């Protein structure tokens, strides 16, 4: 018997969808094996995760709450990955966005009405995330520094800087020694749907952002340049695309979206700047998988963001109900990502099994 791997000439939407669900299913199976090996009842754990997120009104509302940052960040990452620019730094782009909007909120907030302040804080967060995102683009194009390394190092640097701010110069006078800034003024706080933590403004920003980015990638000249750079660097150089301008703008948008997520968490959920890991539950990393599950289509992150938000919420639930560590969600995420990229192979290749021995040509 011989197994051949042959390139697949064309793939249909149905096939893509089938492979996508096949990968998710295979991933869940592999997760079950890891759970079983770790002495956890896999069926119960996976059931509890989805019950915790999609099994109650409370769960669904929390899922939507956590989907918002994932959609914002994931759509920006999808765009960057389309150009094969491996932005791993969304976590810190979120933080810098939060730093910028905190500054605006604390300094200008008391003098401005909400209608001016809220857009201003969003804008400043976008600018903060964009600036932080442009650094690795410049480092890559001007100095040949690999963006995976630079974005990761910038993550650690920004996280330490936030800690420095909240225990040092920005420590709130009203917080009794805790490492928090003072509360943002009331005008900066986003209204939420009753009995939930979902801000309609923020939800609209996230959904609109994902749709706009989807339009940019697939319908605009800029998106065309991004896709050419991602698919064939040589062709892109040949056709006279300005790499520097395109990638810097791309990373400004990608980082800016993460910055918006930072402002959103701040203005809707936390109301003050605090330690990095309480501001973001690893959204910058989870969003990488969100982008991948969306097949790098920014608009589809609306769906994939909800899915992974569900896993985060469900993960929190089993921490309480089954006493499992927070890292369980990482097993989930890592395994699903592995199987998603494995699935990509079967979109571009078909497997042929032949009986009997044959000579390879």
């Amino acid at each position, binding site marked *: 018997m011989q197994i051949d791997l042959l390139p697949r000439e064309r793939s249909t939407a149905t096939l893509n969808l089938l492979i996508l669900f096949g990968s998710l299913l295979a991933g869940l199976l592999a997760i079950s094996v890891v759970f079983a090996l770790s002495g956890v009842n896999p069926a119960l754990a996976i059931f509890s995760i989805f019950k915790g997120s999609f099994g109650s009104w409370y769960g669904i509302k929390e899922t939507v709450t956590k989907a918002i940052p994932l959609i914002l960040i994931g759509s920006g990452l999808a765009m960057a990955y389309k150009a094969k620019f491996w932005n791993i730094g969304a976590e810190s782009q979120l933080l810098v966005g939060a730093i910028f909007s905190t500054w605006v909120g604390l300094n200008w907030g008391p003098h401005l009405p909400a209608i001016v302040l809220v857009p201003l804080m969003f804008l400043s967060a976008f600018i903060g995330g964009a600036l932080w995102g442009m650094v690795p683009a410049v480092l890559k194009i001007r100095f040949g520094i690999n963006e995976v*390394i630079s974005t990761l190092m910038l993550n650690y640097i920004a996280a330490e800087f936030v800690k420095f701010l909240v225990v*040092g110069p920005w420590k709130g006078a009203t917080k009794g020694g805790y490492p928090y800034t003072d509360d943002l003024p009331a005008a900066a706080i986003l209204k939420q749907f009753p009995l939930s933590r979902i801000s309609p403004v923020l939800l609209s920003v996230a959904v609109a952002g994902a749709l706009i980015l989807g339009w940019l990638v697939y319908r605009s000249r800029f998106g065309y340049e991004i896709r050419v750079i991602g698919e064939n660097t040589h062709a892109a150089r040949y056709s006279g695309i300005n790499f520097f301008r395109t990638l810097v703008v791309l990373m400004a948008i990608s980082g800016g979206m993460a910055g918006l997520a930072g402002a959103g968490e701040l203005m809707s959920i936390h109301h003050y700047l605090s330690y990095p890991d309480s501001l973001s539950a690893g959204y910058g*990393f989870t969003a990488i998988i969100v982008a991948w599950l969306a097949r790098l289509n920014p608009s589809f992150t609306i769906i994939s963001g909800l899915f992974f938000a569900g896993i985060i919420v469900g993960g929190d639930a089993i921490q309480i109900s089954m006493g499992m560590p927070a*890292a369980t969600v990482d097993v989930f995420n890592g395994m699903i990502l592995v199987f998603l990229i494995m699935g990509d192979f079967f979109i571009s290749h078909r497997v042929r099994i032949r009986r009997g021995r044959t000579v390879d040509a």
Partner: protein
Amino acid sequence: MLDIIVSVLTRTIIAGTPLLIATLGEIIAERAGILNLGMEGIMSAGAVTGFIIAFTTGNPWLGMLAAILVGMLLSSLHGFVCITLRANQVVSGLALTMLGLGISGLWGKPYIGRPLPQRMPRLDISGLSDIPVLGDIFFNHDWYVYLSVLIGIVIWFLVKHTRMGITLRSVGENPKAAESQGIPVNRVKYLAVMTGGGLAGMAGAFLSTAYSGSWNEGMVAGRGWIVIALTIFALWRPGGAFLGAYLFGGIFVLQFMLQPLGVSPNLLAMLPYLSTLVVLLIYGLSKSGQRRMSAPATLGEPYVRGGR
């Protein structure tokens, strides 16, 4: 004053050891054309496995062995995804990191904060260890430190002076030519990535069974990412790995030395990451430096037999 210098240099060597071991691993994988961004996760899984096995058996050597095996296992998954299924190496590496961190959290939870009864023993070299100053700095460490140096020398020799090294390099630089020479390209890639993973696992076990003697989530603390940067800094040469690992080991130590002087610990904690960027920037400032920073020719690309 001499005391301080001795203590700084001693701790520099200790702090550089896990970086050295893992960087050597990454160099081997990347020389064969496989970028393994999963080092952070593999080191973490190695740390927890090493700890659990050393804790339950009371034997840190078994812990080391188990960590190496887990590292090889995890990296073979990376190999399967990237070599056999030709998937994107960046994403696969990231997935491996999440998986490694997740598994270590899951497995290590009951062991958090428990001290290891039997750490990796010191290698007492009678005579040498007693030399004042030099004996303290160089000859008073645990086995890992000497093993890492030995492994580094062996790898340097193999890569630079043997047929095996030529094979490894040709697979990363020009797999098509290698294959026409009869080299089983993908098998070499698998071996390289698994060797690299084994070393990363070992580096993790050093952290939990020799360096700290305990397990805690997040104890790898970004070292796996610094290793990726060190591989570039070393220009994919084992000799450069020694220089880079001890330099960054020194930066880790500096962080604690400067703390009593009243510098914010948070700003000091940025040092290793900031220095990584500065070091790469220094290369990047000149065209020749940028050229030297260029990776093995086919790094990150899957190899298709008989393909274009």
